[in-house]
């Protein structure tokens, strides 16, 4: 199943990567990720005074010899990283060549696989006019096939409604969130990004667009039909009107980027004609999301 979404060679290359967070996180289970908690690991974190009840195995006897006081050695706890993936599969994503929804699934799968390979916990949420849970959190590399199958099973369609994402986001434990969307919903994504900040989510917004919508490849008279709402309008494409569209799209992209940066999130605009490998190895590493 995994092979159907991502090629084995790509998966092998993804295994060498890991998700990166700027601050320590707390998970529910041990993992390979630094936690805000003090725990058992080889990485020294700090000293603190001994208080009765503390594990006396952690008393630093060398410090006692120098200071004549009991000092406890604290170590960084290593825990799992909770990764939340929000994938837009609204009607507008079923557009373009290569198809945006297909590319979004593949990109989400690649990011999820990196997390699963590092024993991080992955929660998948697909959204259009409302959120659809991707089931229980996935953990471990063996869960990848299950996650990929789940990703591919979601239908594409419906009207984008970012407001409906606010509540599922608010329930997230602090961790890493990645939103994959074309960002074209109306009203814009700002409300969801505020929710991410409040939920102490690090992460990124990845705007995925088809090359044909970045630069329209047609001109002349047409009846335009909205992929999500089905609304229609007569239109004449000229250099002037196409320029106006390109400007509007650029403004929407800039608006999303500004909102993301303001909420401490990273932002990247991706084109579906870029290979998944190049997106992951290039854009996402440059963004500091993967390392």
């Amino acid at each position: 199943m995994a092979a159907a979404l991502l090629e084995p060679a790509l998966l092998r290359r993804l295994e060498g990567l890991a998700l990166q967070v700027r601050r320590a996180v707390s998970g529910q289970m041990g993992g390979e990720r630094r936690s805000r908690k003090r725990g058992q690991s080889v990485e020294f974190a700090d000293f603190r005074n001994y208080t009765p009840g503390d594990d006396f195995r952690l008393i630093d006897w060398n410090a006692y010899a120098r200071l004549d006081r009991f000092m406890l050695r604290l170590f960084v706890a290593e825990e799992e990283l909770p990764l939340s993936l929000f994938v837009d599969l609204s009607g507008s994503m079923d557009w373009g060549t290569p198809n945006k929804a297909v590319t979004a699934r593949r990109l989400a799968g690649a990011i999820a696989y990196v997390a699963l390979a590092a024993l991080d916990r992955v929660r998948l949420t697909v959204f259009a006019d409302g959120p659809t849970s991707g089931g229980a959190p996935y953990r471990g590399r063996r869960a990848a096939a299950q996650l990929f199958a789940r990703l591919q099973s979601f239908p594409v369609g419906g009207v984008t409604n970012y407001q409906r994402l606010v509540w599922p986001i608010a329930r997230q434990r602090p961790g890493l969130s990645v939103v994959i969307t074309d960002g074209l919903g109306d009203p814009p994504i700002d409300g969801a990004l505020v929710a991410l900040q409040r939920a102490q989510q690090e992460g990124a917004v990845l705007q995925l667009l088809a090359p044909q919508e970045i630069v329209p490849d047609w001109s002349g008279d047409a009846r335009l039909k909205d992929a999500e709402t089905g609304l229609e309008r007569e239109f004449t494409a000229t250099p002037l009107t196409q320029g106006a569209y390109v400007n509007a799209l650029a403004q929407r992209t800039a608006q999303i980027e500004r909102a993301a940066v303001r909420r401490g999130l990273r932002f990247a605009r991706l084109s579906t004609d870029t290979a998944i490998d190049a997106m992951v190895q290039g854009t996402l590493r440059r963004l500091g999301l993967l390392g």
Partner: protein
Amino acid sequence: MTFLAPAAAALALTIPAIVALYFLKIRRPTRIVPALHLWPNQIRDRQANVPWQRLRPSWLLFLQLLAAAVLVAAALQPALPAGAALARHSLVLVDASASMQATDLSPSRLGEARRQVNAVIDQLGPSDRMTIIAVGPTARILASVTGDRDALHRAVNEIKASNGPADLSAALILAAGLVRPGDDARAYLFSDGIVQPLRASFAAGLPFPVEYHRIGVSGENVGLTSLTVRTSAQARAAYLHVQNFGQQARSVSVEWRADSRLLDIRPLTLAAGQAQDLVLPVPADATSVTARLGGGDVFALDDSATAVAKTPRAFRVLLVTPGNVFLEQALRLRADLQIDVVAPAAYRPSAAYAMTVFDRFAPPTLPDGPVLVVDPPAGSALAGGAALGIGRVRAVDAGDQLLANVDLQDVHVARSQDLRASTFGRPLITSLQTPLVLVREEPYRRVLFGFDLHESDLPLRIAFPILTQNLSEWMLPPSVPSHSFHPDEPVTIVPEPGATTVSVIRPDGSRRPIAPGSIATFGDTDIIGAYTVEQVLAGRVQRSWFSVNLFSDSISQLKPPDRLTLPPTRTTSTQATHHGQLEIWPWIALAALGVVAAEWLAFHRGL
């Protein structure tokens, strides 16, 4: 406003056609887009293939309708009524006389006249015709009965001002010759009104009305109106007459030169209208004297004057008479004539005399050269018929230069030979009974008086010495003329017997050859200044001089009259004058081009 091509209004059908095209609806392919709200609400119908749709407001439609409307307007060739009333045949008389060189208007009066005439040409309708006549010392047709505007503009722009007067009479005669009876014609005179007096021949009127368009504003001018050199027993002196023709006092300087040597510069202040005479001694060796006014005014042509300072060469004249003190004294008034008087019996033909005067005597054969014969005896070849009783006398042509300043009002002749059958020449003075004085040009200039001077009171009148002077200077012009010539005035040049080459050197240095052997009339006197006549006589160069100056009070006074007395109109047909038309369609066509360009731009910008 009138339309020169009203049939072009049919082209207005294009306007509803354009609107109709916009009613047709386009068949548009459906395109699914991810987010319709990002696409601007722009629609434009480029092509129609489905009827019908609601008409949408569109910049393109507006511009196309505007372009069509403006093009139709241009095709109608609208024309605005212009100021001047034009006839079907406009006779434009442009004053090209000396006074039109005045610069009181920029660039000059002639330049302003050219501008105004060009404006009139632009108002010509498609069926209008125009004739352009330049009015100078002679009248010249520059464009004859044509509607070709380019040719008319060219003709007007080629007009150059002469240094001479404006012979309006000649121009009107010329114009009248171009108008057929019944023609709708009108003449437009663009002039400063400083023209020669009209001849009496216009009493019957002209077949067209004449409009006077005054050109010029100022009469402020100081000019030299006379410069002569007189020789007295002691010395020679130049007499200069300077006059301020303006209404304001002027300070000028007068610069004197003998040949090219500076003699003197004198400051001079003249009140409004004041004239002053200046006298300056002339060096004995000077050939010419030039006076020049400094200070500058609007008319440069009368600011310099030249006079010949050389003493005229003497001519020997033989007077054959039984005794005529009147004739002898009148001839002796010319300082350059040496008069030898002989009785008829003593007469022997001699080549030494430049002119011979026979009084009551005629030899069997007249000598070669100028001859004046008075009352030839009966039986001679020149004698007329039996004597007739004569009363008052009159001039055949009062404007004849040979009778200039000759007043025949109180002249009477008792008896005269009957010269009615004489073939001697044309009559100069006549009476009711018979011509009295005949003149001829060929082969030599000769004069025949049919009456004995003693049978008339003519010798007792002031007219006699003047007439004698005129006739003798006509027959035998002095080597240095006693007066200055006016520009374009013909000058008679009498080559010396035996002269091999004769030429005239003009003030600008150009040389004009003259055929030797006979009296010549030299007409290239359009430039003011000193002219030199060179004759080669047996290998020796002999020079004589004459000067050409403006010397015209009427021209120098410069002030254009508000009204000009023009001949009456002899109306032969209804004057169907119409206002000239100023065609504005080129401007409308230009605007149409602008609208079409805007439409093209709008189309490509996708408006």
